[in-house]
């Protein structure tokens, strides 16, 4: 076998050499024979003649020799390919249309597939990634669907859930890192020692954390990612044992992670121990997860998710028996669900990606139908040529294999363009915000995609060739040589098939159009939701105070006062304030509030509310409207007044039909001493915290910063005009007070609203793009089929005109045909749209899946396309001159 391949390879490589050798060898044979014949007495001329005659036809012998060396199939392939390329070059419009269709459809699919593959299909980069799970706490009846896990949860479960081989807690945060003068706020992950053990990958050099490093006194150790290590040390080994300041405290480097280590979508450059106090670990803090800390675990080999869930449920139940808050937690529907880590991480984006891939496949289907139609028309145009070649001895197998070869050549060429387009599409995805998707940074062009593209092209080539091959075989039955191309059962069947393809195309395009319409309508309705404040001309930024310098409330208050004073004196600044959280910040954690005198209805559980601590003129800066009473101001914080402001949702929930002013509430889920209660002094417009499409009215409470301080806050500044110099001015104002304190996350509120809509805008844009391409393809397809049908029926039309038919009648005939195709396509398409739109229900906002307005609107462009695509052919038909037609035949 190997020797055969080698000999074939030699023959192919040294093709010229092979031919020369063969000629020399045969020549030698004939010369020798001639000599022998001369020696036996024949005259030389007669001897040469005899020798050649007996040798046989030289060409046939040579051809047989080549075949013996396995060269034949390659020669034929090359000849077929040359022939196909020549044909394609003869019909440039067809070829370019086909290539563009293939490139667009495959490019769109590859682009979406790149995202789907990186995010959904590829497993996480850890050993046995399917065994990784995450556990969170949920209090659905309190409106808190997800609340992370608490430190107490970790210590209570560690080693006590047999289905877990290990369990770890982590918390994404930030810290000021770097040497003095070159400090920057870096994303940091705080982890328990078993974090790397659970993932199955840890430091490439050095060690992981130990349990002893989990207290505040001993936690000054750090593990670097390889990217961060490169900044300061040329090799990982050099970093070990060195120190790096984090929030002003020197930390010893004990390990460096491998270069390709990345935990989910984490941007963290440094890992530090998740230290805690004994109080944090106690049962009183069991329910203070607060969404910033997450629990991950690895299932023990053989253990199932259901077993783990049962064990966690049983432990929760037994712990709750000793918990004074048990009744309240039960009322809130407390549970700790366990879900696969990968699936959980990408849950928000998965339906969108699958929907988009389905849309792209639909586009491919439309493109394929279009190509099939164009190829059929082309085959019909060549029916006579095919029939002649058949008559001249080309076998059916030969003609059929030629069709397959030709079509595959076309799809492969198209796929190369499509792959290039896909690579460009991946760049488009990143401008549409794909990198911010979970695992989105992994989206990249890779050989897997190219291979997928080529495979798809091969499959498509085979599928597209089938109808053409079928047509050719049928066409032979009716002797196309003698008859006109028109007539015969084959061309009728082919015509029906072409019409069916146009109908399918119209239907599929309608599905895409209506889906794109619903997504844009959802986007429009989401963007129109009032956020509760006026987002124009508001700049926001984030500050995180290092605990070392800002240990007391008074230092924090003093900082705020200086900053707000300084900002108030900036030209053009209308108002400035601070708050511990701002709308659409990405943090939508909730906490409980207890309203004095409020009696829960039976079965009603305490609710979580968005809670903010504000200083300065936060409400004015953000542009909240005041509905009742007054705003909180800097004076409330300075005077330690126990007052608060609530939003309209909160007021309506607890005090329906009456004024909220004067009512009192406690922070947290328990009433405290009367002196700790806050009096409601104002009601402001309801806020959209998580997103503009927040499903429920959660309610919000605003406290004075002094009474509920925090180590991190946002600054909000409202300017009279949009000013690009405002951001540097804000940074300068902060640096004048504390040169080592960076302002991060600097964005206007309008930008925040804009990016909060990206998950809706990008899919809507892509769907619209797909629908547009589909519309274009349908226009080409309908036009092609109708023009061809005019061409086919030239003779008939000529005769009809000769018999007195008026051009308008002919035109009407073709318009009617176009309308019939449109009507059939529309009916099928509406049914398809109803199904498809039901499937994407979860992506819609304030739009019914079956929206008659959208469907009607989707019909308009498709009807226009069908109408205009038929205008030119119909016009051309009406201009056919009977004389030309009759003289033709």
């Amino acid at each position: 076998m190997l020797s055969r391949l080698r000999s074939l390879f030699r023959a192919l490589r040294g093709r010229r050499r092979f031919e020369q050798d063969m000629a020399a060898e045969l020549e030698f044979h004939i010369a020798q024979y001639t000599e022998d014949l001369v020696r036996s007495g024949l005259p030389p001329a007669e001897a040469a003649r005899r020798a050649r005659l007996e040798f046989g036809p030289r060409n046939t012998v040579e051809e047989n020799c080549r075949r013996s060396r396995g060269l034949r199939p390659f020669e034929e392939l090359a000849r077929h390919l040359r022939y196909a390329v020549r044909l394609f070059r003869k019909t440039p419009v067809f070829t370019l249309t086909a290539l563009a269709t293939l490139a667009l459809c495959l490019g769109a699919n590859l682009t979406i597939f790149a995202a789907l593959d990186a995010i959904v299909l590829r497993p996480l980069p850890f050993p046995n990634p399917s065994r990784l799970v995450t556990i969170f706490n949920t209090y659905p009846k309190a409106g808190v669907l997800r609340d992370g896990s608490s430190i107490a949860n970790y210590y209570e479960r560690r080693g006590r859930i047999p289905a877990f081989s290990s369990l770890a807690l982590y918390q994404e945060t930030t810290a000021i890192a770097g040497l003095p003068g070159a400090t920057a706020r870096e994303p940091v992950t705080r982890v328990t020692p078993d974090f790397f053990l659970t993932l199955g990958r840890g430091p490439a050099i050095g060690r992981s954390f130990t349990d002893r490093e989990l207290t505040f006194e001993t936690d000054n150790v750090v593990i670097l990612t390889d990217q961060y290590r490169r900044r300061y040390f040329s090799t990982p080994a050099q970093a070990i044992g060195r120190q790096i300041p984090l929030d002003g405290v020197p930390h010893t480097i004990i390990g460096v992670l491998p270069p390709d280590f990345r935990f989910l979508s984490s941007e963290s450059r440094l890992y530090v121990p998740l230290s805690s106090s004994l109080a944090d670990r106690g049962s009183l803090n069991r329910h203070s997860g607060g969404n910033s800390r997450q629990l991950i675990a690895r299932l023990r080999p053989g253990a199932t998710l259901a077993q783990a869930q049962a064990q966690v449920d049983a432990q929760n139940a037994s712990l709750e028996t000793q918990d004074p808050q048990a009744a309240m937690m039960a009322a809130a529907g407390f549970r700790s669900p366990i879900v696969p880590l990968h699936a959980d991480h990408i849950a928000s984006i998965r339906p969108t990606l699958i929907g988009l891939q389905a849309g792209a496949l639909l586009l491919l289907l439309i493109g394929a139908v279009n190509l099939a139609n164009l190829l059929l028309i082309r085959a019909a145009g060549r029916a006579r040529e095919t029939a002649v070649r058949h008559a001249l001895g080309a076998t059916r197998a030969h003609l059929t294999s030629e069709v397959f070869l030709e079509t595959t050549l076309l799809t492969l060429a198209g796929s190369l363009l499509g792959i290039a387009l896909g690579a460009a599409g991946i760049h488009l995805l990143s401008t549409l915000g794909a990198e911010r998707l979970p695992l989105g940074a992994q989206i990249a062009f890779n050989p897997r995609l190219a291979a997928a593209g080529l495979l798809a092209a091969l499959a498509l080539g085979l599928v597209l060739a089938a109808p053409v091959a079928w047509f050719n075989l049928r066409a032979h039955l009716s002797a196309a040589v003698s008859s006109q191309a028109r007539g015969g059962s084959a061309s009728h069947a082919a015509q029906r098939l072409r019409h069916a393809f146009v109908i399918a195309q119209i239907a599929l395009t309608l599905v895409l159009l209506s889906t794109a319409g619903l997504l844009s309508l959802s986007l429009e309705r989401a963007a129109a939701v009032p956020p509760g404040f006026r987002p124009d001309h508001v700049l926001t930024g984030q500050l995180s105070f290092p605990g070392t310098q800002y240990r007391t409330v008074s230092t924090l208050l003093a900082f705020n006062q200086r900053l707000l004073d300084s900002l108030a004196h900036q030209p053009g600044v209308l108002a400035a304030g601070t708050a511990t959280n701002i709308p659409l910040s990405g943090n939508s954690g909730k906490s409980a509030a207890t309203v004095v005198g409020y009696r829960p209805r039976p079965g009603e559980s305490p609710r979580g509310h968005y809670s903010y601590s504000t200083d300065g003129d936060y409400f004015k800066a953000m542009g909240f409207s005041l509905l009742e009473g007054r705003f909180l101001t800097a004076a409330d914080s300075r005077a330690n007044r126990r007052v608060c402001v609530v939003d309209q949702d909160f007021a309506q929930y607890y005090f329906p039909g009456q004024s909220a002013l004067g009512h009192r509430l406690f922070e947290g889920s328990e009433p405290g001493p009367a002196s700790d209660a806050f009096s409601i002094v104002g009601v402001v417009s309801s806020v959209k915290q998580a997103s503009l499409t927040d499903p429920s009215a959660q309610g919000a409470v605003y406290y004075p910063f002094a009474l509920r301080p925090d180590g991190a806050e946002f600054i909000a500044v409202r300017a009279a005009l949009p000013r690009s110099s405002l951001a540097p001015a804000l940074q300068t104002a902060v640096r004048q007070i504390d040169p080592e304190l960076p302002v991060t996350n600097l964005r206007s509120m309008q930008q925040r609203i804009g990016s909060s809509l990206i998950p809706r805008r990008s899919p809507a844009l892509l769907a619209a793009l797909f629908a547009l391409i589909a519309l274009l393809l349908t226009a080409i397809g309908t036009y092609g089929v109708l023009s061809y049908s005019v061409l086919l029926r030239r003779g008939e039309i000529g005769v009809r005109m000769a018999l007195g038919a008026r051009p308008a009648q002919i035109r009407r005939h073709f318009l009617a045909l176009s309308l019939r195709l449109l009507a059939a396509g529309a009916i099928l398409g509406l049914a398809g749209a109803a199904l498809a739109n039901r499937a994407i229900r979860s992506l819609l906002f304030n739009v019914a899946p079956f929206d008659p307005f959208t469907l009607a609107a989707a019909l308009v462009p498709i009807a226009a396309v069908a109408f205009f695509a038929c205008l030119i052919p119909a016009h051309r038909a009406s201009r056919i001159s009977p004389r030309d037609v009759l003289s033709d035949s």
Partner: protein
Amino acid sequence: MPKTAELLPGTLDLLILKAVSLGPLHGYGILLRIGQISSNSLDIPQGSLYPALYRLEHQGLIAAEWGVSDNNRRAKYYSLTPAGRRRLREETAGWNRFASAIAAALNAVPGEG
């Protein structure tokens, strides 16, 4: 001219292998050698020799090398490879079995069966 027999399909390969097993030969020499060892009783169309040679070379049963003929011309010489020698042995045995079976069948006398 002696009476010649038509070649049975597949026997040309066997004859070529036999011919070159006696020493390297060029194509024309193989033709002569077959004539010699079969006492010129087989009719071999000259044109069918070379495709057979190329096929056998392609299968690795014979090897080719350019050399110089008796009358000082460049000629391509074929020789048997070990695989060819093995094949020749097997085919010869197979042929003999076949031939004796056919002979026995044709020599059968009525009444013996």
